[in-house]
């Protein structure tokens, strides 16, 4: 796998993020895969910003261990990014001499340094902007042809028109000229575009999966880093005949989707930890009343308000165990940006099929990373409920005890099947009941729905074989996959990857099959208290020999670090 990583930094208004966006899009046109993340200062608007673009000739889901190029339009507060933008002696820092010295935090690793008078050049071009000079410099250094740059600029500037395009192109040309003497760091592809690529964030991908799964109603209360799911889906719903309503809080949003789903429409909301905390009582209601809903939780640092802008896998406990009573429900987790489409779609399908709530655990990294991917597969998974058509002359039983545990659901408007959906324990008709027999029967039935359903192979991604296995979940999978790929390329095979997508209901038999012959296990997760490890230990039979690599956010696992750990652990 060939990669090229570029960071563009600058203070508020410099436009570093725009440069990063354009770079990613131009590279996509040449057939690159890639991932772009961003880091910004705590200001709501206008603070320092870093766009981090990693390009590759193969699909990637992990940010870079090191950067080939760091271009800074200025140095204001840029030292903040030093822990994220790792440089070494092969890295190249390009800075503007007029902005002063490179901060020591960035030169410690002794990177190569070149100077380009970015600010002065921008002034020489009519309506020239520093970030377009920067784009020209980078384009020259990485061998990005003008045609690709022009194509993305035309698409971006669209309405702003000819004049803006010309001044941008002038700036890019000036940047190219100024970079002429800098030794190249080439793109990982040679320009044959291959199949058309998509650029998408995990939040938009989750929204797309929801629409593909048949979601028709969304209630929304904004929260970082989940808001983009809601904003994107608002437009998509207006195009596909659905509706979105802005709720007054998450207590309302989850109850609104319960109401809409009771009315027969597949319904969803998206939130993050604080919102999920508010929703758990009503998740239990969805379990008891057997009303399907989907809740996407884009995890961020917790507890409490925590760190809203970073990823952490620390909502596993609340998603699995947060509900009071015995409340079996679905918890799923996408393990890549691409997989946000399929897993969300599958979640809608499962929630509808099983008439129960599904919690989808994405995270800030997956949600907000912009990725160049192959067009996601279309799956034949559309949410469909088992509906009652009439009571067949009998008294309709909303919670009829069936073999599968799933009971035909009557939607308001259907004559003869009126009933009350109830969070109070009830008998099969739906009448509140506190008898031991009814409680037992309904608990069994709700559990049976989940244990009897055949979830198939989609429950986990299992790759490779051998006596060593790495078990992980969610976004961390990207780094593990890449590390294992590196090992394999070096001839070090024999390590299995098990990335669990369906967290609950647990799949003991499938898990045992996935681990057949495994003697040692390394668990990797982004949680301070190792929630995943405790979850696995509670539900699955694991080998004696377990090691764990875990830590809290915000420092994401990168392939290099995981690779080193796998090597020392496995001795491969």
């Amino acid at each position, binding site marked *: 796998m060939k990669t090229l990583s570029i960071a563009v930094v600058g203070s508020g208004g410099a436009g570093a993020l725009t440069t990063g966006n354009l770079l990613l899009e131009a590279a996509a046109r040449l057939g690159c895969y890639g991932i772009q993340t961003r880091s910004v200062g705590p200001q709501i608007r206008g603070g320092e910003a870093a766009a981090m673009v990693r390009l590759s000739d193969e699909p990637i889901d992990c940010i870079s261990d090191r950067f080939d190029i760091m271009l800074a339009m200025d140095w204001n507060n840029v030292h903040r990014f030093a822990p994220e933008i790792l440089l070494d002696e092969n890295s190249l820092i390009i800075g503007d001499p007029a902005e002063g010295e490179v901060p020591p935090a960035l030169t410690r690793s002794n990177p190569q340094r070149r100077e380009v008078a970015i600010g002065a050049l921008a002034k020489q071009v009519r309506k020239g902007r520093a970030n377009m000079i920067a784009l020209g410099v980078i384009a020259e250094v990485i061998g990005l042809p003008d045609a690709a740059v022009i194509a993305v600029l035309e698409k971006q500037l669209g309405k702003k028109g000819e004049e803006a395009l010309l001044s941008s192109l002038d700036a890019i040309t000036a940047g190219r000229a100024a970079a002429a003497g800098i030794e190249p760091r080439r793109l990982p592809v040679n320009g044959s575009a291959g199949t058309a690529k998509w650029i998408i964030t995990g939040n938009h991908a989750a929204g797309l999966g929801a629409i593909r799964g048949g979601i028709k109603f969304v209630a929304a209360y904004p929260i970082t880093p989940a808001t983009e799911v809601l904003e994107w889906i608002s437009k998509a719903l207006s195009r596909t005949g659905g509706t979105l309503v802005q709720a007054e809080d998450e207590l309302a949003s989850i109850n609104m989707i319960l109401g809409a789903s009771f009315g027969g429409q597949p319904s969803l909301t998206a939130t993050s930890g604080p919102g999920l905390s508010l929703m758990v009582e009503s998740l239990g209601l969805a379990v008891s009343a057997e009303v399907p809903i989907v809740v996407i939780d884009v995890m961020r640092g917790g507890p409490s308000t925590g760190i809203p802008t970073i990823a952490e896998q620390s909502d596993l406990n609340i998603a699995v165990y947060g509900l009071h009573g015995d409340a079996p429900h679905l918890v799923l987790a996408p393990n890549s940006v691409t997989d946000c489409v399929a897993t969300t779609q599958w979640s809608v399908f499962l929630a509808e099929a099983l008439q129960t709530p599904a919690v989808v655990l994405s995270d800030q990294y997956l949600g907000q990373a912009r990725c160049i991917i192959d067009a996601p597969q279309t799956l034949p998974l559309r949410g469909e409920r088992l509906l009652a058509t009439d009571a067949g002359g009998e008294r309709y039983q909303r919670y009829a005890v069936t073999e599968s545990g799933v009971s035909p659901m009557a939607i308001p408007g259907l004559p003869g099947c009126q009933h009350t*959906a109830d969070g109070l324990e009830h008998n099969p008709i739906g009448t509140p009941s506190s008898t031991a027999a009814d409680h037992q029967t309904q608990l069994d039935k709700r559990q049976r729905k989940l244990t009897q359903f055949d979830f198939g192979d989609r429950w986990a991604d299992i790759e490779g074989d051998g006596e060593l296995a790495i078990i992980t979940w969610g976004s961390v999978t990207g780094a593990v996959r890449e590390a294992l790929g590196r090992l394999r390329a070096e001839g070090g095979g024999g390590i299995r990857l098990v990335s669990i997508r369906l967290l609950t209901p647990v799949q003991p038999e499938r898990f045992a099959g996935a681990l057949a012959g495994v003697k040692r296990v390394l668990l990797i997760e982004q949680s301070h208290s190792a929630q995943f490890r405790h979850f696995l230990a509670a539900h699955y039979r694991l080998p004696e020999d377990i090691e764990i690599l875990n830590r809290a956010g915000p420092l994401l696992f990168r392939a290099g670090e995981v690779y080193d750990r796998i090597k020392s652990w496995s001795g491969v």
Partner: protein
Amino acid sequence: MSQTAEAAAPVTLTPNDYKSNIKPIWCPGCGDYSVLLEITKALAALALRPENVAIVSGIGCSSRFPAYSNCYGFHGVHGRALPVATGLKIARPDLTVLCTGGDGDGFSIGGNHFLHACRRNVDLTYIVMDNQVYGMTKGQASPTTDPDWDHVLMPGGTGTRAFQPLVIALASGANFVARAFSGDPAMTTDIIIEAIRHPGFSFVQILSPCVTFRPDQREWRNFVRQAPVPETNDPSRAARRIMSDDGFNLGILYRGDRPPYRISRKAEFEEVTAIGKEFLV
């Protein structure tokens, strides 16, 4: 709608067609029995078919309502009835959606939803059986309880000013505001009929005695009276009247003409497969 169901439906609907055969758990003499009768009478008068009506509630004695009706019902968690009803009505504008509950459910734990339901003005009818007490949890003060009402949890009373649901509803934008008394079936039924008919968010406070924990409320029948002035469509006038009355003036106190929440759903929409093209580079 299937042919057989059409044929089986009674020609004229009576209040009994809206009652289930489940026996209420309410104490003998509880005001909520009358409200059940009044709502079923109103539905019959409006000739709404039971399958096209949904009754949504939270938790409390009064919130037990849905199961006692023969309409579609949703009995959710404490305080969240209005969001459920809102989601249901927006998803299914063809249904008549009523929301029923108590003063604790609606103004305490669910108070925020009350404000926003009034603002949002979705075409719902919200009926609160106000007994100025938490009945289900056996007699604690609710937001509408007087500050000096002595009870076990707060001997000597809460010392907290009573909540004024009608003015709050008015200030928040409810489109129809009325007060009724469960012991006056004719007037209450008429008010409910008007509330259901009126577009937008209609709020009806029904004084409904809790004979068990507020036996003093048996006296209410001697206090209530028809409001001495006709209804108005001027919210500030309505607010002045409500704030200066003693809480026993009955009738439709405000009827506004604010357009209800707009449910925008395109009649012609694109196939799901059309969605996502924007991501193609």
